[in-house]
């Protein structure tokens, strides 16, 4: 990177189900929280990118103007896409301080989805119109995210011998971490029996393997290393970042469901740093579905391909293990933030702000987002 980039501040909106918060509310609350965390004013920000809201409206209504750089839309791997654009803009000198947002209005599920609510929501409207490529999935009763997640989960099991208990151990571990996080929705201990008895959404995918839909707004402010040194919180530096797209956006007909874009992403990430997987103190790996975290553990080289199940079952991803992973409890427990929570948790771990779930002396963290056709990841470190 031409200029070194740091993270200045992080913040969330209020988060929950049926909060009544508008998309603009989610933007305002998360942005103000991140500005306060950084000790910055709106006028200090000169770049903005949002996934899920209107970036130019957001900037203008909050008095973030003029903008030297902005990225006002597009399809990409959720939060890490916004983060990567912000990092690139600062590294290349187009702006000095960029706000990256991921804004998510709760997605309709169950009866609400089937009863017509699904057709009216931006995240599910496409599931009710079988045109274009969707004419090859939706009429077949296929093509919904839990179904492609079921396909990828089944392939991991068939190819590597991964078991339901392996996924269960991952889910239980995340719940243990959530118990130490006041912001998590689900904090009660979970047993293997409870996991195995939880209902299938698309077998072998269980409801406890899925992130929890909710209203959420997440904001992260990136800035130059020079500016970060003078701010309220200890600076966290972006050591390396990488995006990858290995095909167009079809999870359900991936040519290889066991190794997807995270492998290519990780190759680029490690090529951009002298750090090695063994240098990572804590990993924050996307868990939209359990199998995604497994793919990232393998792709990033924390274990061999196909070995994520035994790696997790051995306790390595628990607090106190050799790679404490998803220490906030993951999106299965803190609710859907589409990757932003993993960046924010990494930052808080590196600052030493995590209280009972703090990874001792955490100096290097990795966070990732998405998988399959496209994804991204970044390595963060403190001085």
């Amino acid at each position, binding site marked *: 990177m031409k200029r070194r980039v740091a993270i200045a501040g992080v913040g969330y909106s209020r988060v929950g189900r049926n909060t009544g918060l508008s998309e603009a509310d989610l933007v305002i609350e998360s942005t103000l929280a991140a500005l306060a965390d950084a000790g910055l004013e709106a006028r200090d920000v000169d770049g903005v990118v949002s996934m899920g809201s209107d970036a130019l409206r957001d900037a203008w209504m909050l008095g973030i103007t003029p903008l030297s750089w902005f990225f006002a839309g597009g399809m990409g791997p959720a939060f890490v896409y916004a983060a990567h654009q912000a990092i690139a803009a600062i590294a290349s000198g187009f702006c000095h301080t960029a706000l990256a947002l991921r804004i998510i209005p709760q997605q309709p599920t169950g009866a609400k989805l089937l009863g017509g609510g*699904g057709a009216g929501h931006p995240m599910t409207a496409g599931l009710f119109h079988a045109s274009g490529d969707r004419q090859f999935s939706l009429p*077949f009763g296929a093509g*919904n995210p839990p*179904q492609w997640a*079921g396909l990828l989960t089944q392939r991991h099991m068939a190819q590597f011998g991964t078991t339901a208990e392996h996924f269960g151990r991952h889910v239980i571990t995340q719940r243990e971490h959530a118990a130490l996080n006041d912001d998590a929705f689900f904090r009660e201990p979970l047993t293997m029996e409870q996991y195995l008895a939880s209902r299938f959404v698309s*077998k*072998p995918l269980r409801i406890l393997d899925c992130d929890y839909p909710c209203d959420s707004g997440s904001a992260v402010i990136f800035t130059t290393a020079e500016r970060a040194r003078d701010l309220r919180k200890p600076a966290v530096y972006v050591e390396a970042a990488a995006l990858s797209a290995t095909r167009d956006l079809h999870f359900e*007909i991936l040519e*290889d469901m066991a190794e997807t874009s995270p492998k290519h992403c990780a190759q680029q990430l490690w090529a951009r740093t002298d750090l090695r997987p063994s240098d990572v103190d804590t990993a924050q790996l996307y868990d939209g579905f359990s199998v995604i975290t497994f793919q990232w553990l393998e792709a990033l080289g924390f274990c061999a391909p196909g070995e994520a199940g035994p790696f997790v079952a051995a306790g390595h991803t628990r607090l106190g293990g050799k790679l404490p992973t998803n220490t906030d409890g993951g999106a299965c427990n803190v609710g859907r933030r589409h990757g932003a929570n993993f960046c924010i948790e990494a930052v808080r771990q590196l600052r030493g702000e995590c209280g009972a779930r703090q990874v001792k002396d955490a100096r290097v963290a990795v966070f990732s987002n998405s998988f399959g056709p496209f994804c991204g990841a970044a390595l963060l470190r403190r001085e």
Partner: protein
Amino acid sequence: MSTTAEPLLPIPDALTQFFWDGVAAGELRIQRCQQCRKYVHYPRPVCRFCRSRELAGERVSGRASLYSWTIATQAFHPFWVARVPYTVATVELAEQPRLMFLSQVVECPENELRAGMPLEVTFERVAPELTLPFFRPLRAEAAR
């Protein structure tokens, strides 16, 4: 919740009409490059292997192997509510390595599903106005 059981019908376009015409004729047709002879699915206006613009739907054998599957236990569209559970499958068509096709596997108990198992296409009329190419275990007489 809506009680309608109308299926979600495909909306063919100039690029995909051949596929649904094939289904109506009881044939599985996949887009094929007329220059390099590679198959392309989902249909595209250019060949990703050789950049030719000359592509056309061609009948394929209907043979495939099972790559992965998932048992749909929850419906995401009203039409399928009364039809769960069913087996969503990604199959690899015999014509070309890694030529993947999304469908359902029918006529096979769940405990007999295996990665790599040989399959053949079967056309199933799921509603008066919708016939779909599904797959079933390859029958012995067909394998000869």
